């Protein structure tokens, strides 16, 4: 009997995991545990199952793989730095004071929106609790036994007259809500999943899409502005027969290539915002073509460009659902009784041990 409890290591449990330490190996550990529980109240970010990193005690969230974020930051900082140090003084002298002011405002806006995109929870959905997962499994089994021949683990819902298939996520153990997709890089289901952007080192989803959009738009303006200023600087220097413009080569090259790609990307995302689509849906062609002879339409669009733009960019900011700084519910294990307290095998009978697998603090399925 005791061996059954010792095999379970709470450190490998998915969220919610019990906050108390692993199964006891001796009686004296049981006395220390109440005190340890009071001292070591753990926050939910510490047992978060996705591939994310947390800083400042869960206040800041980052994807574990930062991708090429350092390169993005480096390019922005170096190019802007060269602009402010070399081009601004010349242009202030020859043109106007507004040049560094506009450049400064754009630079600050670009940096802040980049950091917001990178450090904001994109709309991660917490994984299903064991009870919820069991209930869903039961419903899946019932629908199979009922003889209904649907593809395994999908559910059809009608949204604004359009039939949409919801897929079951085996990692998060739930049917994904509409427009939600599981990011393989971050190992999370993200609401209104757009794409995982390696340049910002994070997923782009429901909560940070507006930051991402304003980042690429402001970066387009910033890059175009620097390109324009450097070209003007070059032209004025050629007029004055000056030949030392080595720093401008780097700025021109970076800006020239960036302008085309970033302006293009901004244009593409402006189209997506206006039609209320995500990159994921656009790539998959979810709302183009036909299904069963009927043309498919985007059920989420408000059928009005202005309303689509306002709802995505200026709509209410949804809350983070993962509650990173919340404390793990310590008392949940004790309240549910019936073999739930693994530190005290002496209270259990054989039946209670069989109940352990159904305990809400312990997983019903092995951790993925």
């Amino acid at each position: 009997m005791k061996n059954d409890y010792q095999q379970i290591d709470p450190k490998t449990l998915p969220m919610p995991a019990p906050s108390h330490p692993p199964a006891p190996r001796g009686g004296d550990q049981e006395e220390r545990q109440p005190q340890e529980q009071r001292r070591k109240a753990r926050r939910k970010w510490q047992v978060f199952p996705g591939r994310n990193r947390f800083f400042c005690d869960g206040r800041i969230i980052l994807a574990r793989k930062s991708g090429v974020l350092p390169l993005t930051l480096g390019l922005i900082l170096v190019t802007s730095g060269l602009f402010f140090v070399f081009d601004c003084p010349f242009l202030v002298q020859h043109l106007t004071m507004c040049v560094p002011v506009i450049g400064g405002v754009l630079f600050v806006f670009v940096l802040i929106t980049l950091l917001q995109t990178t450090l904001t929870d994109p709309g991660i959905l917490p994984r299903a609790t064991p009870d919820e997962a069991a209930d869903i499994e039961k419903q899946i089994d019932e629908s199979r036994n009922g003889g209904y021949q649907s593809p395994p683990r999908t559910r059809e819902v009608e949204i604004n007259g359009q039939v949409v298939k919801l897929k079951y996520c085996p990692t998060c153990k739930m049917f994904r809500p509409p427009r939600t997709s599981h990011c393989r890089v971050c190992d999370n289901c993200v609401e209104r999943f757009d794409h995982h952007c390696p340049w910002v080192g994070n997923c782009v989803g429901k909560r940070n899409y507006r930051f991402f959009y304003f980042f690429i738009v402001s970066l387009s303006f910033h890059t175009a502005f620097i390109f324009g200023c450097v070209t003007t600087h070059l032209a004025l220097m050629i007029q004055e027969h000056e030949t030392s413009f080595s720093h401008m080569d780097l700025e021109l090259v970076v800006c020239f290539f960036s302008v085309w790609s970033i302006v293009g990307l901004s244009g593409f995302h402006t189209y997506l915002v206006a039609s209320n689509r995500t990159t994921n849906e656009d790539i998959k062609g979810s709302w183009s073509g036909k299904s069963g002879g009927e043309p498919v339409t985007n059920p989420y669009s408000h059928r009005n460009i202005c309303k689509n733009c306002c709802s995505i960019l200026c709509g209410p900011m949804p809350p983070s659902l993962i509650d990173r700084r919340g404390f793990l519910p310590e008392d949940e294990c004790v309240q549910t009784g019936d073999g739930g307290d693994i530190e005290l095998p002496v209270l259990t009978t054989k039946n209670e041990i069989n109940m352990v697998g159904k305990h809400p603090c312990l997983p019903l399925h092995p951790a993925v």
Partner: protein
Amino acid sequence: MLPCPSSSRGKCKLLRLQELQTPPVSSKVFIQRDYTSGTICRFQTKFPSELENRVDKQQFEDTIQTLNNLYAEAEKLGGRSYLEGCLACLTAYTVFLCLETHYEKVLKKISRFIKDQNEKIYAPRGLLLTDPIERGLRVVEITIFEDRGVGSGR
């Protein structure tokens, strides 16, 4: 079955007392999201059969409908939300560091509503509603406690 070690007898007693004060969970019912109107937060108002002998159907539907109305208020697209969004954009979203969003204010209202409903209606009937925000706004979890006739469900 192992004998109870003398060092943990105190805890054995404490647990038994806690078991008496908080009746063990019998089962849980999950009210799923209703996506017929899109991705807005809305729960199905269909009355689950497991609650038939526990709570009045109309009362249950009123609770869920009120919840739905509150979430609709939180996600409403209108002058206020656009103003909040524009202000946030102009301040490069730094305003969110200092001010509570309208959505967060409504979520607090929802928590108070659920607590109130639990105290007045559900707890005396051995039921407990869990705030959907604790389940990622996916389900309304209703815990059904065994009817032992010992205290309330909370």
